[in-house]
């Protein structure tokens, strides 16, 4: 629900903006935007800080925690000690929630952890001041007041769906929205020429990681957004939205088929009968279908 209200689903592929050496591919809107949009829509007040000095950042965190408010932090993944070694890359878009302090350790609730865990103050300071692309600079956010909170209504959901459709279909640049997927397909055809065999496979690995690892819920948020559409169809009693949900699920399955085939490039250097051309064609099919779905979705909300 929150992903849908924050108009979170998106696609962009930016070959000129590098994250740890590879072109950035993103399946959601910039981090923090979903949170700020949802709180604004629902009338929840929150504060957001970032600090130049790490000690100030930790002092402020302690102060807010003492007041009994859980705090969200954006951190780098590289020094998170409780992650498997293989997952620890220089990626600064991981969000976690600190819910308390126990002596010198902080109690953390990680979005992908099933249980709570502890992290020492020194480690937390390090991940809050991770370097690299988009450094978090100790950024933190917390809810200050919910007294003006408005109940969820049909208008909010419709508005957010229209916003999502705008992002997916109307941005007049080739890298953004559903047509960005076709742009990625065009780039993919050139990869072998540009980066060589191994470089091309590494670029593909990066796309798959963004799709499955960062894209929570599977297939780069597509299943999650489909779940939102289903929930919305019940709330607004519009059976048409459930139809869109099922169509988006089918697209999600196509994404997973794409990842499944792409993985053959990592198992063996020369997968027989599979080329980047084949993968690019798969992406073009996905692009056309997503464009079609979001255009019809926009029409159905706007005109009946």
């Amino acid at each position, binding site marked *: 629900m929150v992903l849908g209200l924050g108009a979170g689903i998106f696609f962009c592929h930016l070959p000129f903006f590098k994250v740890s050496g590879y072109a950035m591919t993103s399946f959601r809107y910039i981090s923090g935007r979903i949170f700020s949009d949802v709180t604004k829509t629902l009338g929840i007040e929150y504060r957001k800080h970032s600090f130049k000095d790490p000690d100030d950042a930790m002092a402020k965190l302690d102060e807010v925690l003492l007041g009994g408010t859980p705090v969200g932090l954006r951190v780098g993944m590289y020094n998170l000690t409780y992650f498997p070694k293989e*997952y620890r890359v*220089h990626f600064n878009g991981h969000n976690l929630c600190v819910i308390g302090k126990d002596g010198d350790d902080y109690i953390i609730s990680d979005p992908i952890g*099933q249980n709570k865990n502890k992290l020492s103050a020194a480690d937390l300071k390090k991940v809050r001041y991770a370097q690299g692309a988009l450094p978090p600079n100790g950024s933190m956010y917390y809810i200050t007041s919910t007294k003006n909170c408005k109940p969820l209504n049909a208008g909010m959901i419709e508005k957010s769906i229209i916003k999502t459709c705008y992002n997916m279909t109307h941005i007049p640049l080739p890298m953004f929205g559903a047509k960005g997927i076709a742009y990625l397909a065009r780039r993919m055809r050139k990869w072998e020429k540009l980066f060589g065999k191994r470089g091309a496979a590494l670029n593909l690995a990066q796309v798959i990681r963004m799709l499955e690892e960062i894209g929570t819920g599977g297939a780069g948020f597509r299943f999650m957004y489909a779940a939102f559409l289903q929930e919305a169809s019940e709330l607004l009693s519009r059976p048409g939205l459930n139809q869109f949900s099922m169509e988006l699920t089918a697209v999600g399955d196509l994404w997973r088929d794409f990842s499944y085939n*792409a993985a053959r490039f990592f198992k063996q250097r020369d997968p027989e009968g599979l080329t980047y051309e084949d993968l690019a064609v798969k992406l073009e099919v996905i692009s056309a279908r997503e464009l079609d779905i979001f255009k019809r979705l926009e029409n159905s909300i706007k005109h009946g």
Partner: protein
Amino acid sequence: MKVKDVPQDDSFVQPDRDVNLCGRLFALDDDGKYQEVPSAGWSPRNEAVRFAWNSRKEEAGQVREKVLSGKYSPLAFHMARAMMTSGMMAGYTGFSRRNINKFCKPKHFASLDSEALSKLAGALNMSVEELISID
């Protein structure tokens, strides 16, 4: 995707078993309703992670050869192993990027004092002894 198709291919060792890191997938149950299902991992994703990890090791191995032949300093090897760029290293240590690139050459690396070495080692999460060796 159906609930029964949610993959459970766990293949990485988790340092802290109690946390039980586990992604969540949204999948359809038999009535066509969405549900949140925990998923331990999926083999194509694991392959992608493993492939990236192995090629990083290979790259570090190539840099190691160059360190042995006297072209680079051990710092270059440790940076390649940690996937650090000189920009990131500069951010962590406070040296300029130009200086970090300079320290990647054996001549300049040898002239560093202990304070500078400990700064570099701290950014790479290792001791000074580890920083000057290449094991």
